[in-house]
């Protein structure tokens, strides 16, 4: 015979299931310390992928290949990474070309003058901002990086960009996939990434501090 006088059974069951659920949540809370993915300081940087140009040709780039999962703070063998978001037709990026090139040579220890801290590699992610006159191409990326060719960049012929040709890798992000993923507010934007992939410093959160100063302050080493 069927009956309908057992609402308490369902309440009792619901309480037990909820207790199990919250016990599981407590277990997760006590045994893990998840780090959110994002581009704010302290978050785990999202993927940065695409075809990249390093001076010789175009090859696949994945930021994961540059990271060390088990890096611990104080380990000076781990290599840091500065990700610079630029547009070859952005005037501010044009102006920053010299300073960024010098910083890259110095901190990545590829120039004549080397700093004594851990290696800080630089990569530039080149997007094509949705602004009239900002049409770009791979040839223009090469021209901006190498100061070569006959392409026109932000303030004229790319060969006239301030500073020397850059030695670091440029990523083709003309479709803005990476920029969208990283929620880049504008160019140029700089992100200092720890060897384990955690965002250590973001230029938009520190508008008064230059990337070189941030590296010295956060990564360490002598000035």
């Amino acid at each position, binding site marked *: *015979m*069927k*009956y*309908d006088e*057992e609402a308490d*059974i*369902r309440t*009792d*069951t*619901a309480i*037990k*299931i*909820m207790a*199990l*659920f919250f016990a*599981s949540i407590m*277990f*997760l809370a006590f*045994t*893990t*310390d*998840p*780090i*959110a*993915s994002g581009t704010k300081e302290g978050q*785990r940087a*999202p*993927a940065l992928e695409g075809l990249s140009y390093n001076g010789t040709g175009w090859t696949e780039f994945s930021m994961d290949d540059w990271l060390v*999962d*088990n*890096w611990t703070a104080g380990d000076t063998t781990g290599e840091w990474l500065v990700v610079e978001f630029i547009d070859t037709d952005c005037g501010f990026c044009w102006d920053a070309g010299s300073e960024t090139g010098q910083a890259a040579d110095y901190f990545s220890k590829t120039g004549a003058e080397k700093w004594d801290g851990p290696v800080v590699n630089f990569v530039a992610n080149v997007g094509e901002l949705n602004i009239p006159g900002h049409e770009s191409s791979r040839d223009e990326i090469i021209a901006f990086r190498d100061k070569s060719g006959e392409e026109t960049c932000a303030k004229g012929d790319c060969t006239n960009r301030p500073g020397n040709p850059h030695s670091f890798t440029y990523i083709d992000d003309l479709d803005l996939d990476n920029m969208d993923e990283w929620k880049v507010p504008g160019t140029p934007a700089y992100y200092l990434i720890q060897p*384990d*992939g*955690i965002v250590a410093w973001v230029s938009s959160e520190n508008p008064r501090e230059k990337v070189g100063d941030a590296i010295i302050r956060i990564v360490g080493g002598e000035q």
Partner: protein
Amino acid sequence: MDANLILMLYVMPLLFGTVLLTPFGSALGDALSSKWPKLEIPRRQRLLGLNVVLLVGFAISVHTLWISNKISEGGSVCSSATVFSCDDVLGNVAYNTDPVFGLSWGMIGMVAFGILMFLANSMSKEPDALWAERYSKYGMYLTLLGLPVIGLLISYEVAMGKICQYCTTAHVANVIALFGFWTITRMHEHGNWNDDTTSEASA
């Protein structure tokens, strides 16, 4: 401990629950009935099987969420040397959360299996309640709803070229639970939802 060895701790009870949900469960139920007499009754066998399967689904969902959290810390749980790598799947930020709310798939699994466990547990405690048949249908619809979600997650794995063995076990638990709720619904419809033992039912 090896991740695949730990997986066996889930697969064994999942198999046990699955057997109880099938006609082979009668033999297993009869074998266990000397210690637990109620397991001689087919519907008790089905309910036990369903509860075990759902508990495994819930536990494995908690485990996948734990793995997701550990990977976000920079840890490593599964070797990525083979196509079976929960690290590569659960650690992929492009796919490891649902596209609408941004919730971790492990958390969604916990909630889904929690609701299913509530339905199955309630039925187990009061199998003759008026709402018991309705609950079996709710369970069936909910697990049916899980199928397109499983399809989406499998498409992610295909895109990545990697398989998360823990996630797959949770998906299998959902499919088995669907079979379990469907079986119970059919027992209601065919008038077999009673405490007759296997021998009485066949007579």
